Structures are given as structure tokens and as C-alpha cells.
């Protein structure tokens, strides 16, 4: 378990103090994939670096499995970092080492003998699907392949945690998919707790169990992904989740409703049932639905007919069918 308590990080520049993180309280449970999302400059990269103390917080506590990292002697901290793997947006592979020797690097540090390290590295390269590239140099690989090597390297010392700092942000959509699948596989089969830092909704959407939304150095909202996605409370979460420039508001004079789907209800043909039951036309202005853990979540914006009686009927039907909605 990783616990961050009252974390604060201030950077000092010549002219001013910049508060990068303030009053951060988070608990990341073992075995979950935890997402941290925010716009660039929100402080999320600093936050993830505080977990392994690449950045030393100005105040507060970082507890990993109950150990306060800030109190650990330097040597023990280095030792502990071996149980926290990390991958980066820029992959950060050793350019002058082969793929195999990149993966053996952390093992050499741990003092493993050459033959064992090689065997372990080959195992990991097989896991990430790069067995045939062990003799290649990073410059000969594609972005996705480099990230796979980085994942193999991070997993070499069998860490309990894996920190991913914008790990897919430099990759194209297809490659992003395959890297996310690999992370999910590592989480499910090896039980590794994964912390994902990203500015992309789809990354959170696809692999995370819980998410923290960070804005302006503060945590704006934390919760299960399904919950935060279906009913974002903070402005920043709404801004990140609800699409920009949706046509709502462009059409004036009509009443609009935002229907929220949480779980099973979206498997029912709700809109057709609604229209058939009320004998009133509605028009769908916007819909954004997703499948999470086999259930559907999302929201939809409906424009209602102008006639007041028809509107009442529609609202009554929604109430009776326990579909949550709000005026949009």
C-alpha cells in the first residue's frame, strides 16, 4: 500500500516559489491500477516522483508498506526503490546497451550473477514479446518496442509497484492499446500495483480501477473510475471528462436533459422505450457511453420537445424508471 499524507512540494526559483503540490492525501491499495489525471502543469509528474522520492517532498509523508520513505537512510532508500519499478514517456533506455543488457541492468545492480541475470532478462523479454530483439540496440526499435523493453527492465527485480509516467503519451493509438493491455496483464497475472500518470482520459478509462483528478497542485476528486466518469463533481473532472464544445447551449429555447447511465441500465433500449411510452419525440444531441468491467456507463444529452405536457410525461417516465438526469 502506498500512502501519501499531507504532501507538499515547493520549488524555489530565483524570483519566486512555485507550489507544485499542496495537501495531497492519497491511498493506493495493493493490486489496483490507480490513475492520476490532470492537465499538463497540474503537478502529476511531481506527484509520481514523490512516491519513489526522485523528488523529495517539502513536507508530508510518503509511506510505502508502512515505511516512511522520508525517514529512510539513503542506502535503504536505494534498496527500496528496487521494489518500485518506473517507466517514462521518453522510455529512457540506455542507448549504448543492447535490449538484453538494458533488462539485466537492474539485476547487475542487485548483484545477480551474469548467467542468472541473462536468463531472467530473457524470461521478461518473452513476457513483453521481444524475445527476438535481445541483441538490438534501442535506436533500432520503434517507440512501442522501446516501452516494452522499459517495462521488462522495470519488472526485472520483481517489484511490487510500477509507476508509469505518461508511459503511452508518445505512442500512437494502436501502440498505446497494446502497451495498456500489457500493463493490465502484468497487473492481473503478477499482482503488481500500478500507478498511471496521464493526461489522456482513454488511458484511465481502459485500465484503471480508481482515479485521482489533480488540478492546480491539489487533488480535486478521487474515486472509482466508473463513479468519477459517470458523475464528475469537480469542475476539472467535468472539463476532462465531458467533451469540449459539445453542442449544448448552441440551441437556445429548448429544454435539455443530461441522462446519466450507471451500470446495467444502458443495456435496456431506454430511448426507444421512452419515446414509445410517452409518444413524444426527443433528439439526441450528444452521447458518450463506455463499457467498464462489462457494465455500461456514460451520459447522453437529450433535447426535449417544447410542449410542456410532453416534457412532464418524459420526466415522469424517467423518474419511474429510476434513470438519473439533470437539466443541462
Amino acid at each position, binding site marked *: 500500500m502506498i500512502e501519501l499524507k499531507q504532501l507538499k512540494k515547493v520549488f524555489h526559483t530565483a524570483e519566486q516559489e512555485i507550489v507544485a503540490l499542496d495537501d495531497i492525501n492519497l491511498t493506493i491499495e495493493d493490486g489496483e491500477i490507480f490513475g492520476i489525471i490532470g492537465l499538463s502543469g497540474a503537478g502529476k509528474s511531481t506527484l509520481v516522483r514523490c512516491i519513489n522520492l526522485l523528488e523529495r517532498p517539502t513536507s508530508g509523508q510518503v509511506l510505502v508498506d508502512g515505511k516512511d520513505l522520508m525517514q529512510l537512510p539513503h542506502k535503504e532508500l536505494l534498496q527500496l526503490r528496487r521494489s518500485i519499478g518506473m517507466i517514462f514517456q521518453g522510455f529512457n533506455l*540506455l542507448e549504448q546497451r543492447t535490449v538484453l543488457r538494458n533488462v539485466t541492468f537492474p539485476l547487475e545492480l542487485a548483484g545477480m550473477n551474469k548467467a542468472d541475470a541473462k536468463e531472467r532478462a530473457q524470461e521478461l523479454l518473452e513476457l513483453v514479446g521481444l524475445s527476438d530483439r535481445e541483441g538490438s540496440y534501442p535506436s533500432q526499435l520503434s517507440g512501442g518496442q522501446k516501452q516494452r523493453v522499459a517495462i521488462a527492465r522495470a519488472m526485472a527485480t520483481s517489484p511490487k509497484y510500477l509507476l508509469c509516467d505518461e508511459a503511452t503519451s508518445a505512442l500512437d493509438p494502436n501502440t498505446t492499446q497494446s502497451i495498456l493491455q500489457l500493463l493490465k496483464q502484468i497487473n492481473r497475472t503478477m499482482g503488481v500495483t500500478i500507478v498511471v500518470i496521464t493526461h489522456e482520459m482513454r488511458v484511465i478509462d481502459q485500465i484503471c480501477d480508481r482515479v485521482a483528478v489533480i488540478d492546480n497542485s491539489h487533488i480535486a476528486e478521487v474515486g472509482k473510475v466508473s463513479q468519477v466518469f459517470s458523475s464528475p463533481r469537480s469542475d476539472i473532472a467535468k472539463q476532462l471528462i465531458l467533451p469540449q464544445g459539445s453542442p449544448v447551449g448552441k440551441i437556445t429555447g429548448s429544454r435539455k436533459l443530461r441522462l446519466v447511465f450507471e451500470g446495467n441500465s444502458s443495456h435496456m433500449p431506454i430511448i426507444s422505450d421512452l419515446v414509445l411510452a410517452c409518444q413524444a419525440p426527443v433528439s439526441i444531441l450528444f452521447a458518450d457511453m463506455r463499457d467498464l468491467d462489462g457494465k455500461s456507463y456514460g451520459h447522453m444529452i437529450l433535447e426535449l420537445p417544447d410542449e410542456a405536457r410532453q416534457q412532464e410525461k418524459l420526466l415522469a417516465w424517467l423518474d419511474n424508471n429510476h434513470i438519473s438526469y439533470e437539466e443541462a
Partner: protein
Amino acid sequence: MFSEMLQKLWDSGLIQLGIWQTTYMTLLSTLISYVLGLPLGVILHITGKDGIHPIRWLNRVLDILVNIFRSIPFIILMVAMLPVARVVVGTTMGNRAMIVMLVIAATPYIARMVESSLKEVSPGVIEAAQAMGTPSFRLITKVMLPEAKPSLIVGAVISTVTILGYSAMAGTIGGTGLGQVAITYGYQRFEDDVIWVCMILIVIIVQIIQEVGMHIAHRTDKRIVK
């Protein structure tokens, strides 16, 4: 076509000896300068503002020292450092004294070369190694220096050529080699062809060092897709 002097120098083997002395003084001085300059460059880099171990005062002191030695023209530094040579090798004359001068002049130069090569190593790679729990010394020996290797080799080639130039200057105050041959037998006795021959020989030596060094640097660099 050639002067009698040149003929005599060649027959007595003085020119051949000069080639050997220049080569040997250059390579030996470069080697010793690297033994001192490489650690100095590493310290300059890691104690710097963005280094892995910022120590402001130490960095400042070394930085100023390096700048002072780098800003003195070699010909003046050489004369000024004669007492140092006496302390180190017991004499102010001959090649041993000259090697001391060359090392004094070249070490700060090499330290800067090393520092700038290390600056080229991606901070991300260093961060990744730190995230893996790499202790500082191994960060230097296993990450920074190996990753900077091609650039360090290029730096070594440039340094060697510079030191070769210095070694020729050392001919004016009692050093030996092609520089001394050119000055003593060419310049002072008005035999222009001796000067020209020495110059051409130095150019050839520089070319050989340059070509071989660059070839090695290129072969070593795994960032280049072959």
C-alpha cells in the same frame, strides 16, 4: 631542390626522431591529462546545478580554477610553470619537464571536454537509473560514462590534436620533437624547407589521429543505426 640542411637532418635521423618524440610526447601527455582531467570533469559535472550531487562551493572553485588555466595562453603558462616542473620532475629542461607543462595546460581543457560530453547524456536515462536505486558511483561508472562514450572519444581526439599543437610550442623552450626541429634548424637558420617539411609531417600526424579516432567513435556509437 631541397637544402643541404634538410638532407643532413634526414640522414642523421633527426626528423625521424622528431616524429617519434612528437607522437610520444603527445600521447603520453594526453594519457596523463586524462587520468587527471576525467575525474575533474566528472566532478565538475556532478557538483553542478543540475548534476546528481550539487555542491555549489566546490563547483564554483573548480570552475574558476579551470577557467583561469584555460584562459592563459600556453606559451605563457609554459614559462610560468617552469618551477612546478622542477618540483615534479626535478628539471625544467627536456621532455619530462615539457610533459608536466602539457599536462598542466591540457588537464583543465580535458575536464571541460569531459564535462560537456557528460552533459549530453539524457537526464531521463539518469533519472531512470536513479529510480532503479543506482548508487551515485555506479551511476557514473555504469550509466554516465558508458552512455557518453562516443562523445568522450570525440573529445579525446580533439584534445590530442590540441596537445600536439602545444607540444610543438614546447620546442621553443627546450622541448623536443618536430616543433623544435622546425624552430632550431628551420626558423633560426632561415631554412624554409625545414619548416615546411615539419609542418607537413605534423599535419599528417594530426590527420591520422583524427581519422582513427573518429572511426573508433563512430564504431562505438550504438545510437547510429547501421
